């Protein structure tokens, strides 16, 4: 049933008894053309695009828990494309362009809201670094503008632009096309649209083994819901990628899984209309439509598969928020949680084929995977369908580390000298 105000109204008269399941919950078939491992936004998007754009509909998404239960449902929902390096700009802008029409594409209101991303520069070095971003973005055709501290406060009332704080704000870049979206809706929207095209979404279905033939190519997988034969597997398992790939003999990767925390305040009447980010003092804040202040905290540094982190991370984030918005000290944290993010050494993702024929991987998104959801899904689908990397994904292959062709956004943003 198509979603619209009219269908909502019609169903109101029948007390909403007639809404069908948003996605089917079928039994696994013995074989699929493609199996996507990981029922997060990325994996579901890949399945959707395989069916919708590449005509491959005999597809399963296997998820060990419930769809969207990992990082898709645990992030701070920031969407932007104002990256520094050309390869990253192309990748994230590819995704942003899909975001801009995603609600209509999926017939599901994912609430993409280009509220503007304000990135704060503190001090001379930040200003230098941000200027480089600004010029790089402009050359790439990505919208980005420079705001003085006063202009930044005009855009985000309440921002503390006093010169007397420890690290005064020296200005900001603004990407107006950037914003936020409703994370769960993205997952459900892709699931619903993919399921309607024939994709089987198999929840509570944990992969326990990857089968390979004598030539080394994949032939199928073992799951807690039985064996499934397939020639093509796309792994999109975020923090658990290492665990899954080890089943195919790819144990050691340039990848580490660490906990990333986030938190929300109690709901408040609207006070922050955009997304404010400060990499220097580690604070990210926006306000959800519900009124909660959504705040991203940092990562603990150690490898972890438990979705919790230390108090010092929360404390360090909130002291930064209180520096930027000193009138928020009395506002209270309502809920704090963590996810497991998979980080590469250059903080850029790995997207493409692996040394194992038939096995493709999409991982290493670190703290920034949400914004890439539709784009990464699309590129993984294209790569699986073609058997080789999509041109936008090509620079992000696993082979780049050995060659030394890193795409190092973090290093390129440099550190204080």
């Amino acid at each position, binding site marked *: 049933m198509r979603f619209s105000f009219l269908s909502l109204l019609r169903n109101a008269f029948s007390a909403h008894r007639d809404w069908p399941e948003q996605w089917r919950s079928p039994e696994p078939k013995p074989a699929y053309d493609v199996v996507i491992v990981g029922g997060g936004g990325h994996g579901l998007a890949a399945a959707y695009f395989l069916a919708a754009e590449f005509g491959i509909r005999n597809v399963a998404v296997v998820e060990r828990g419930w769809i969207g239960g990992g990082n898709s449902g645990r992030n701070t929902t920031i969407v932007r494309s104002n990256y520094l390096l050309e390869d990253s700009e192309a990748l994230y802008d590819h995704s942003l362009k899909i975001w801009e029409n995603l609600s209509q594409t999926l017939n599901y209101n994912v609430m993409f809201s280009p509220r503007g991303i304000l990135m704060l520069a503190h001090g001379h070095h930040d200003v230098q670094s941000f200027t480089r971003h600004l010029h790089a973005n402009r050359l790439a055709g990505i919208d980005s503008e420079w705001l003085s501290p006063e202009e930044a406060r005009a855009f985000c009332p309440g921002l503390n632009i006093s010169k007397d704080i420890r690290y005064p704000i020296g200005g900001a870049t603004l990407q107006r096309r950037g914003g936020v979206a409703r994370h769960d809706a993205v997952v459900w929207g892709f699931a619903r649209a993919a399921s309607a095209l024939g994709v089987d979404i198999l929840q509570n279905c944990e992969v326990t083994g990857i089968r390979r033939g004598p030539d080394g190519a994949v032939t199928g997988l073992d799951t807690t819901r039985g064996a499934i034969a397939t020639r093509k597997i796309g792994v999109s398992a975020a923090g658990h990628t290492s*665990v899954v790939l080890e089943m195919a003999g790819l*144990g050691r*990767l340039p990848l*580490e899984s660490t906990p990333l925390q986030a938190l929300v305040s109690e709901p408040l009447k609207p006070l922050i209309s955009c997304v404010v980010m400060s990499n220097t003092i580690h604070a990210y804040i926006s306000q959800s439509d519900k009124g909660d202040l959504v705040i991203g905290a940092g990562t603990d540094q150690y490898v972890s598969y438990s979705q919790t982190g*230390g108090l010092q991370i929360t404390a360090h984030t909130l002291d930064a928020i209180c520096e930027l918005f000193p009138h928020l000290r009395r506002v209270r944290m309502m809920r704090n949680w963590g996810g497991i993010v998979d980080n590469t050494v250059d903080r850029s993702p790995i997207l493409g084929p692996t040394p194992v024929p038939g096995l493709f991987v999409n991982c290493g998104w670190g703290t920034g995977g949400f914004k890439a959801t539709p784009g990464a899904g699309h590129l993984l689908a294209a790569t699986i369908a073609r058997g080789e990397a999509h041109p936008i994904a090509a620079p992000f292959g696993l082979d780049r580390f050995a060659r030394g062709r890193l795409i190092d956004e973090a290093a390129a943003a440099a550190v204080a000298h």
Partner: protein
Amino acid sequence: MILISCPWCGDRDQTEFAYGGDATVQRPAPDDADPTRWFDYVHTRDNPRGSHRELWFHAFGCRQWVEVTRDTATHAVAGAVLAGLRVGEGETP
């Protein structure tokens, strides 16, 4: 807030330490010409769900690098030795 048993200082809060990563990486011999071994050393990491050997630098303590064996799913620390002693048959002080 993991408690790490530093061989010199005893049980200390994780916030006194800086994380140093996978302790199983081996720097190849200087004359090792095989680039894949260097690639492994510089970039690839053990990333297991379960027991993990890892380095922690006791930055706000004795400033010693400590090799800790920790379960990455439960954070249970099974032991810690000075990193410099792990190569040989040395014991913790």
